[in-house]
């Protein structure tokens, strides 16, 4: 068993609220020690010593919302290519969305994903399964069997269940299995043909808008049903002040609810769409600046528990089109950490809270290993230079698809090394 000692690093571990200069000892696949105390243990015999002065060690990120093209659209992204992008972005675990082709709504497909991941992926891949068969929003999928096979959450991916009774039954049934219902909400009737945030900016562009209420109405319904059923509900991607307020009220009522947000909703606003830039067509749409500010505050105060990349690879065939005809979504695995660190550099959100939302909180919510540097845990960790600036360039993107919202952006905070179960899977 090889032993590596990372010394003189700043160690930030939200699972233990630890932020101190110290060392991390990786023994084989696990963490033997991490923190100031590990520093004093000295180097174990035969250990490789890595000096990390000026660098920071974080638990590897756990990205709870990643769309992959495999199966069905491998030209956009495979499990292998997504994992390479993840490793470069410091993401050591991903939860893969089930809206693939075919839909992951069956044990055989969960097994396919796990098998493909085992054979081709360099980070941990955890499949989420569909709440309803074929994402049709009518019949429940086999929560028990799917969970046993390895599905870590139940979600409709980009889709919203419109039938309240189906949602109530799913929440009730999921409770018996301790499963989390992880749901994006957008009322399809109210959103209608909308393609960006409703408001003056969309009106001038002549684009149909999506009102904030299209997100909030099904979200409020879900939160009420989560209270009724006392079930575990995760609002997957909120984007408005209105939604944050709804989640905050439900939490105050003691409901077992959590909320996530895509980093784009905290980094960008509707004006970034500019003159019909389709890479900025996202779902939920980029909102007004007031909403972005409210999202940042909701992350700071913990209303938003989890930050995700909402990685969604799209090719030229779905993006090189007029705005309203283009697909929504943007890749984000490689920029998740650096985009989130803007909030740290701007002193808007404490570093500990940011790393919690990117790693510890999602691991805990979905019952995954990782999200911690505690002794005995799997050595999923990253060495980061929090200050190092870098430029996002298309030719450096590892994803098969290049639809990033951050092309040409200057970001600060670079992943120098990524370890999954003690093995180095990325080195800058």
């Amino acid at each position, binding site marked *: 068993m090889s032993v590596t000692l990372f010394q003189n690093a700043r160690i930030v571990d939200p699972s233990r609220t630890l932020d101190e200069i110290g060392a991390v000892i990786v023994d084989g696949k696990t963490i033997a020690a991490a923190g100031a105390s590990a520093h004093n243990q000295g180097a174990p015999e035969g250990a490789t010593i890595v000096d990390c002065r000026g660098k920071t060690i974080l638990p590897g990120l756990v990205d709870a919302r990643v769309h992959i093209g495999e199966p069905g659209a491998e030209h956009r992204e495979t499990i292998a290519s997504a994992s390479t992008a993840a490793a470069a972005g410091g993401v050591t675990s991903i939860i893969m969305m089930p809206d693939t082709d075919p839909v992951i709504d069956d044990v055989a497909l969960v097994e396919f994903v796990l098998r493909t991941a085992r054979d081709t992926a360099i980070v941990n891949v955890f499949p989420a399964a569909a709440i309803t068969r074929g994402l049709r929003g009518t019949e429940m999928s086999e929560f028990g069997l799917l969970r046993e096979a390895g599905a870590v959450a139940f979600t409709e991916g980009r889709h919203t269940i419109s039938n309240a009774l189906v949602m109530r039954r799913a929440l009730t049934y999921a409770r018996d299995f301790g499963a989390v219902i992880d749901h994006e909400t957008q009322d399809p009737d109210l959103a209608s043909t909308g393609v960006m945030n409703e408001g*003056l900016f969309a009106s*001038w*562009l002549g*684009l149909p*808008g999506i009102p904030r209420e299209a997100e909030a109405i099904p979200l409020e319904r879900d939160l009420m049903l989560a209270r009724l059923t006392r079930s575990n509900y995760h609002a997957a991607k909120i984007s408005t002040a209105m939604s944050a307020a709804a989640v905050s009220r439900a939490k105050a009522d003691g409901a077992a609810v959590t909320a996530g947000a895509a980093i784009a909703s905290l980094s960008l606003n509707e004006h970034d769409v500019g*003159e019909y830039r389709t890479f900025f067509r996202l779902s939920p749409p980029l909102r007004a600046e007031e909403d972005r500010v409210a999202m940042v505050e909701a992350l700071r105060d913990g209303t938003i528990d989890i930050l995700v990349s909402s990685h969604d690879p799209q090719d030229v065939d779905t993006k090189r*089109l007029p705005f*309203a005809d283009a697909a929504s979504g943007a890749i984000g695995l490689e920029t998740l950490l650096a985009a989130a660190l803007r909030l740290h550099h701007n002193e808007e959100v404490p570093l500990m809270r940011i790393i919690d939302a990117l790693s510890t909180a999602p691991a805990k919510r979905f019952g995954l290993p990782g999200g911690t540097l505690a002794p005995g845990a799997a050595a999923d960790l990253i060495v980061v230079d929090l200050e190092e600036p870098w430029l996002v360039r298309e030719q450096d993107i590892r994803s098969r698809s290049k639809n990033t919202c951050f092309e040409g952006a200057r970001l600060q905070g670079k992943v120098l090394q990524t370890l999954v179960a003690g093995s180095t899977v990325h080195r800058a």
Partner: protein
Amino acid sequence: MNERAPFPLYPHRHLLGIKDLSPSDIELLLDRADDAVAISRQSEKKTSTLRGRTQINLFYEASTRTQSSFELAGKRLGADVMNMSVASSSVKKGETLIDTAMTLNAMRPDILVIRHASAGAAALLAQKVGCSVVNAGDGAHEHPTQALLDALTIRRAKGKIARLTVAICGDIGHSRVARSNILLLNALGARVRVVAPSTLLPAGISAMGVEVFNTMKEGLHGADVVMMLRLQRERMQGAFVPSVREYFRYYGLDAEKLKAARDDALVMHPGPMNRGVEIASEIADGPQSVIQEQVEMGVAVRMAVMEALLDPRRNPEGVAG
């Protein structure tokens, strides 16, 4: 026309929207269009300004009047005009707008006129081709030549645009004509009103530089110009307004409602009209109507736009840099 006093150089390569134009750009195009009106009224209507130049009309939405207006404008300037109608093109075979654009671009046209159902389509095309692009209507975004021809019609009838009160009535929300007109009329100093049921108004309308009215009586009060918009049939059967008869009752322009406007108010409509829906026949054909003049001005404005874009002083090779 060689004796024509030289116009200032038009500073843009494309005409994608009124939004990109300064008041002086607009005035320049209107001045050039005044000259073009004179050409169209001669018995010899053909000039040689654009001789040897190629104009392609790429219409993804059927529009007999706009397409023929552009075609006639090009022909009167001596250009070779080709119409690409969607039905006979590879668009039906699933080719994307950009691939079609690249193909057409390889044929080295000097000007591409595009009509498309999606907002932003003209701008997207302009990024990918080497020639000038004229937006002939993109979704609910802009229809700049319509706003220019409306302005020319008003200016010729009223002698000015500044400080006139213009009421734009009807389906503002889905209308590219409304957006382009709001921009242009504001740029030239008119007072712009919109009159519509609230279901046909876009979000944020009160911040778009207009006064908003929900009744024709108030909205038309003292107006110098009443501009009616077409209401698509599928929008008047319960989705946005309950019925045709209810819409006509409250928002259709008839003699009674027109009384609220000034006695010499102009009545305009971009066409094609739904008689008895947004406008009564007696008004459309009445003495205040300038709807036929609008059609005539349409050809003149399009001639002016294409001459300005292909001005040989700026663009000697016909390929913009």
